[in-house]
């Protein structure tokens, strides 16, 4: 009985030992895969950047040699463990804030965020005002002529009454 338990214990220990060894052997390939960032990971950052040489072409789709070098640099930085913000900051430090697809929310760049909505609101305000004014002007001529017709009719009535009174006097 004791021998049987001993055998089972040895078997279990061997199984656990082999499992540990197997898992240890499996780890390095997984780490190696993580060390090489995929194109998607590189492009996720690249699409937020614009190379100054190729205006209006996001870095992730730009076909020039300069842009390819930038993408390689992003891949290298990701492999070194740098964060997205650190990588973007590196490009801003080296090439200026104009490389960012979305300008930073600071200093002079605030105008980019404030001016367009303000202009749209102002335009909407003036359009609504102008629309109301036109509508009022379109209504006024009709109302104005009705009022003048009433006044004219009143004047005619007064005149007729005075005329009749004069005729009565002369009878």
């Amino acid at each position, binding site marked *: 009985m004791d021998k049987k338990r001993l055998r089972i214990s040895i078997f279990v220990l061997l199984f656990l030992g082999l499992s540990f060894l197997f898992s240890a052997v499996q780890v390095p390939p997984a780490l190696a895969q993580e060390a090489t960032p995929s194109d998607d990971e590189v492009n996720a950052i690249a699409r937020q950047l614009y190379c100054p040489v190729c205006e209006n072409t996001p870095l992730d789709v730009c076909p020039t*040699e300069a842009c390819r*070098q*930038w993408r390689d*640099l992003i891949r290298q930085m990701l492999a070194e463990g740098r964060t997205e913000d650190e990588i973007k900051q590196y490009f801003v*430090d*080296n*090439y200026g804030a104009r490389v960012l697809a979305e300008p930073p929310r600071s200093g002079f760049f605030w105008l980019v965020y404030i001016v367009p909505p303000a202009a749209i609101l*102002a335009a909407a305000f003036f359009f609504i005002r102008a629309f109301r004014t036109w509508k009022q002007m379109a209504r006024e001529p009709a109302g104005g002529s009705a009022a003048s017709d009433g006044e004219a009719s009143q004047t005619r009535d007064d005149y007729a009454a005075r005329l009749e009174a004069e005729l009565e006097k002369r009878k």
Partner: protein
Amino acid sequence: MNENNPTPPAPRRGAPLWVQILVFAALLGLLVLVGLGLARAQQPIIAVGAAVPDFTLTLFDGYAYNGAGEVSLTDLRGQVVVINFWASWCKPCEEEAADLEAAWRHYAAQAPGRVIFLGIDYVDTEPQARSYLAKFEISFPNGPDMGTRISQAFNRTMGVPETYIIDQNGILVHVQIGPFLSVAEIQRIIDPLLGR
């Protein structure tokens, strides 16, 4: 009759005066900003005959000027300064790289301390820039254009290669858009400045 029935005052139309002034001031400010931006964007390259504004170039590791890791244009007053903008991804830059290095070595030997060449690396990555410098054995001071500030001061629509030659008084005397085709071409511009 009209005296007995005075016309009621017309209803007040339009925004208050202060709102109108504010809106017009904002519009004016916006127009000025847009105008300044456009004027800035269309600024031409520094004209020949004009003084070149000062700048400081931080040099790549392994390069130095008078033992320092950076160089300012004002430090170079009294020398002819050849400023070459280049990039490792620029094929035409490769065409002139050897000629620039040969010209630099020629003047370093023939007129020491009278001519200085500066290489400014434009929109480039450092590993590729270093490979380029090593490939063409460039020995004159070189550094990256951090934030593209120097190139923007020279030409807002910079393309490489571009070379600017400045006389001993800090005045721009020659602009080369595109590569030099020979050492002789470079010498034809620099020699007269040295009284040759």
